[in-house]
C-alpha cells in the first residue's frame, strides 16, 4: 500500500470506492440534507473541511498512540478529536457566515456522528498511509462526498416537479435514486491506471 501514487489514492476515494455510494459511509446527511442544491453544497464543503482537519489530527494521534503503546484508546481519541474539530468549525462558521450556519442547522453538530469522518480516520490507519497519502485520501473522500450529495440534490430538485405515486414519495424514492447512482458509480470500479 505504501507505493500507491497520490493521484491513485485520490481517485480511489473519489470515484472507485466512493465513500457514500460504494462504502455506505455518511448515508444520514446524504439522505437528510440533499433536498436543496445550495444546502447540499455547503454541507459537502463543511464535511470536507472536517474530514481534512480530523484526518491530519488522526495521523498525529496515531503516531502518539503507537509511541505510548496504547492503541486500544484509538477509537475514543479519534472520536474526541472529531467532536472538537466539528465544534471548532461550528464556532467559526457562526462567526463568519451566520446565514450558512442557520441553513445547515441541526446537521452541523451531526457531522460528528457522520460515519464517513470516523471511517476515513480508521481506514487511513488500517491502510498505513503516510502523511501525504492521508491528505490525498481525505481530499478524495471529501470530493467524493460533495459529488454524491450534489448529484443527489440535483436529482431530487428535479423530482419535486414529477408526479410520483404517494406511496413512493419521500425516503423510498430517495433510496431508489441512491441505488441507481450507486449502480452508475460501479462503472468506475474497473478504473485502474497504476
Amino acid at each position, binding site marked *: 500500500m505504501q507505493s500507491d501514487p497520490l493521484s491513485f489514492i485520490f481517485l480511489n476515494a473519489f470515484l472507485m470506492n466512493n465513500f457514500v455510494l460504494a462504502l455506505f459511509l455518511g448515508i444520514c446527511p446524504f439522505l437528510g440534507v440533499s433536498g436543496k442544491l445550495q444546502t447540499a453544497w455547503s454541507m459537502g464543503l463543511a464535511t470536507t473541511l472536517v474530514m481534512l482537519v480530523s484526518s491530519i489530527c488522526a495521523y498525529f494521534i496515531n503516531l502518539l498512540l503507537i509511541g505510548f503503546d496504547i492503541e*486500544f484508546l484509538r477509537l475514543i481519541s479519534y*472520536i474526541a478529536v472529531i467532536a472538537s474539530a466539528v465544534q471548532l468549525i461550528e464556532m467559526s462558521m457562526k462567526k463568519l457566515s451566520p446565514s450558512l450556519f442557520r441553513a445547515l442547522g441541526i446537521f452541523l453538530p451531526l457531522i460528528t456522528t457522520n460515519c464517513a469522518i470516523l471511517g476515513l480516520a480508521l481506514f487511513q490507519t488500517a491502510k498505513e498511509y503516510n502523511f501525504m497519502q492521508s491528505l490525498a485520501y481525505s481530499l478524495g473522500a471529501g470530493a467524493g462526498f460533495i459529488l454524491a450529495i450534489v448529484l443527489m440534490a440535483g436529482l431530487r430538485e428535479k423530482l419535486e416537479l414529477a408526479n410520483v405515486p404517494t406511496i413512493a414519495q419521500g425516503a423510498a424514492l430517495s433510496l431508489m435514486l441512491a441505488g441507481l447512482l450507486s449502480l452508475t458509480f460501479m462503472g468506475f470500479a474497473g478504473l485502474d491506471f497504476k
Partner: protein
Amino acid sequence: MTSTQKSETEITADTFLAGIWRENPVFVMLLGMCPVLAVSNSVINAVAMGIATTFVLLCSSALVSLLRPFIPKEVRIAAYIVIIATFVTITDYIIQAISLELYNALGAFIQLIVVNCIILGRAEAYASKNPLFKSLINALGMGIGFTLALLCLGSVRELLGNGTLLGFSVMAADFQPWVIMILPPGGFFVLGAWLLLFNWLKERKQSPQITTALSQQA
C-alpha cells in the same frame, strides 16, 4: 401530580414495543442507515451486527441512565460519546476473540457503531431522562427492532444475491443469482422496496375513499 409522575416512571408494553414497530429505528426513523446498508449482504453478518449494536445500546443506555445526575448539561454529548466508544471498543475486542472470520467480514463497521445515530439518539432522548430499568427495556426494544430490520434486508439480499439463506442453498439448482443484490446498489434497492411495502400497507389501512379522492385530485 402523583398520577402524572406515576405514568412517567411506569413501564408499559409500549416502552418495549415502540422500538420494534411504531418507532422502528430503521424503517420509521431512518436512523443508522450506514451499517444497515453495508453489512446486510448476508443473514449472518446482519444478525451479528444487530446483536453487537444491541449490546452497545443496552450497556450505554444503562450507564447514561445511571450517571444522569452527575453529567453536566453542557458536556453531555461528549460524555455520551466517550461512554459509547468505551463499549464499542469492548465489543470490537470480543468479536475479534470469538470469530476472526466474522470480524473481517464486518470490517470497520464494528468500530463505526460509535457513530450510529440510534445509540446517541437513545442516550440523548431517552436514557438521560428516564430511570435505569425503563431505559434498559426501551433500549432492548430498539435493539431488537434494529436487528429485525437488518434481518429483513439481509435475508432478501442473501436469498436473491446468492441463492442461499444462512449459508444453506435454498433456491433451485438452475437459479441464477442476482449478483447486484449483494453489491452496494442492492442495499439501496432492497431498503427502498421495504419502505415502499410499508407505505403501501399504511395507505391501504387508511379509508379507501380518501385514497381514491386523493389520487383523483393528483
